[in-house]
């Protein structure tokens, strides 16, 4: 996964002179998660810009640079730190185009590791892509595998709007095939990660592994799962979700972020509104517990959704 993101960034730097990267310790240190390791010597300090610990300011710098014609890619060490720059992202980046009546574009990507699961406790484990997905004027994507990461990153950097590119911290080491021939994955497109007939399971990012495990458990009960990878939290691809629901007539939606206010609340409400006639049972929604993320390993695991918990709930509710 790390390599795929790296490849997408290198390609953009190679092909578009207006692309530059800014963030804390991305240059000399090589990035908190080593994604930009080696970039400084390859592309030089004019394009690989180490910033002070000033999230509000270097996010805002990205906005200004984008408004003036560059294509900055901003790296945050954690999506939890986006909060320090939230005003710039929400009030400025997302609104400038609309407020200016379409005069000004902000083609900027903000990449940030997201999610719990590595015992970083309450301040470092959150999933604010779910908050940012609510804001009109920005796109928000989150890949679950190397192939999608590269395809989505290509589209994100080429897009003429601010894009939040959330990278599940748990997945940097994930291996997977990446096609040699050039491809892009459009923002706003979900994918069918596995075809099936009886139930549709939807999640994104680190949740996908859990869905595949769930599907294996349910296969033993002769239940065939279709698995949908949301990939894009804003906009959400209701066509793909809807088609799947029409086929299976059952939906299970899983967030690895807190359930309360998670993106699946939105998915479920919209499916309920638009595809109610196709549903043969209540929609099941599962998310992380609505608690601050605890440091202790067992407590963190308890708060995190698991395939055991999900399959149990499915068997109880739907079958």
């Amino acid at each position, binding site marked *: 996964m790390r390599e795929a993101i790296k490849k997408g960034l290198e390609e953009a730097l190679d092909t578009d002179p207006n692309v530059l990267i800014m963030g*804390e*310790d991305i240059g*000399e*240190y*090589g990035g*908190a998660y080593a994604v930009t390791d080696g970039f400084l010597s390859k592309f030089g300090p004019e394009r690989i810009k*180490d*910033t*002070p*610990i*000033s*999230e*509000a*300011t270097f996010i805002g710098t990205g906005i200004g640079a984008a408004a003036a014609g560059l294509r900055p890619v901003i790296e945050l060490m954690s999506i*939890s*730190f986006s*909060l*320090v720059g939230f005003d710039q992202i929400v009030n400025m980046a997302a609104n400038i185009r609309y407020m200016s009546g379409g005069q000004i574009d902000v083609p900027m990507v903000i990449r940030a590791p997201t999610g719990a699961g*590595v*015992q*970083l*406790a*309450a*301040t*470092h484990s959150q999933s604010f892509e779910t908050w940012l997905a609510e804001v009109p004027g920005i796109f928000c994507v989150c890949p679950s595998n190397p192939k999608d990461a590269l395809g989505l990153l290509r589209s994100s950097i080429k897009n003429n709007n601010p894009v939040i590119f959330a990278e599940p911290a748990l997945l940097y080491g994930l291996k997977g095939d990446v096609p040699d021939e050039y491809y892009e994955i459009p923002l706003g497109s979900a994918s069918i990660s596995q075809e099936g007939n009886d139930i549709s399971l939807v999640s994104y990012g680190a949740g996908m592994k859990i869905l595949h495990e769930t599907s294996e458990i349910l296969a033993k009960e002769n239940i065939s799962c279709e698995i949908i990878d949301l990939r894009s939290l804003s906009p959400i691809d209701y066509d793909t979700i809807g088609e799947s629901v029409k086929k299976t007539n059952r939906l299970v939606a899983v967030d690895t972020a807190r359930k309360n206010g998670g993106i699946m609340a939105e998915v479920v409400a919209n499916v309920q509104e638009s595809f109610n006639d196709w549903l043969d049972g209540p929609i099941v929604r599962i998310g992380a*517990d609505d*608690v*601050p993320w*605890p*440091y*202790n*390993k*067992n*407590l963190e695991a*308890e*708060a995190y959704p698991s395939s055991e918990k999900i399959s149990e709930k499915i068997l109880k509710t739907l079958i």
Partner: protein
Amino acid sequence: MATLKEEKNKRVKKTDKEKNQMLELFRQMYLIRQFELACGENYTKGNIRGFLHLYIGQEATAVGSISCLEEEDYIITHYRDHGHAIARGLDVNRSMAELFGKKTGLSKGKGGSMHLFDSAKKFMGGHAIVGGQFPVATGLALACQYKKTGGLVVCYFGDGSTNQGTYHETLNLASVWNLPILFILENNKYGMGSAIDRVRAGGEDFYTGVDTYDIPAAQVNGMDVLAVKEATEIAVKKVRQTGGPFYLECKTFRFVGHSLADGQKYRKSNEITEWEKQDPLVKFPKWIKSAGIATDKDLEKIKSEVNKTVEKSVEFAETSEEPSKSELDDDIYKK
């Protein structure tokens, strides 16, 4: 401000009380060092997880400064917080247990290394968002002022955090409202892999820039525990007299990586070895002996007691119970 050398040259006769104070400073610094070494070891073993930032090299700063505080004074700091916690006298067993994520930990295993708290000791955290502690320090100081407790707030922070807006906003407000805060900068020359000269306008010295906010400021050798102590005594006296802020910059150095995940590729060559010559755990005991305060034997005795304390804390943490799953929802709201 006096340096170790000047102090030594004075060759003043120490009273027993003063001698004991010196030995206590040594004991605390040695305790922090051993505690941190044990943490590193247990991180490798997988007993401690997440991010772990060690205080090795900076011991003189926390110990020298906290030795000047009273019970009613608050402390607030960042994620590199073990040294401040131990110098403030937080229970070593419960601190280690917190790092192990155990039920017996200071925060019942919920906070971990970066988020140590002990409200009974007015130790108001360990805060892991860089720059997050500044505004809260302002509020603690406002409460001290409002309630006329006579207490002050010591706010520790790193050089890297001074690039956050909250730093500048807090210095301004503390000055405008004349709040009793002692800002203690631990200038260890790096914020993670970023050397100061790459991320800061205005050079390597920070205390000179504080004029802008009309806050009195000084700089001290943070590797010299007596110098830190003396400087803090002056600073604390000033804060208590004026009721307003003071800014103390301690020049220090961490001998280890930013966290346990850091390969330290960014270091200048020889830098660590150079700074290690100032290791407070080598220099200070040497001085203690040369000043006739204690013998090798006395120091060995202190060391072996501390070693036992640390060993016991690891044992305590290891054998402590995990929090039960039902505790997941506890302590979100006050009932």
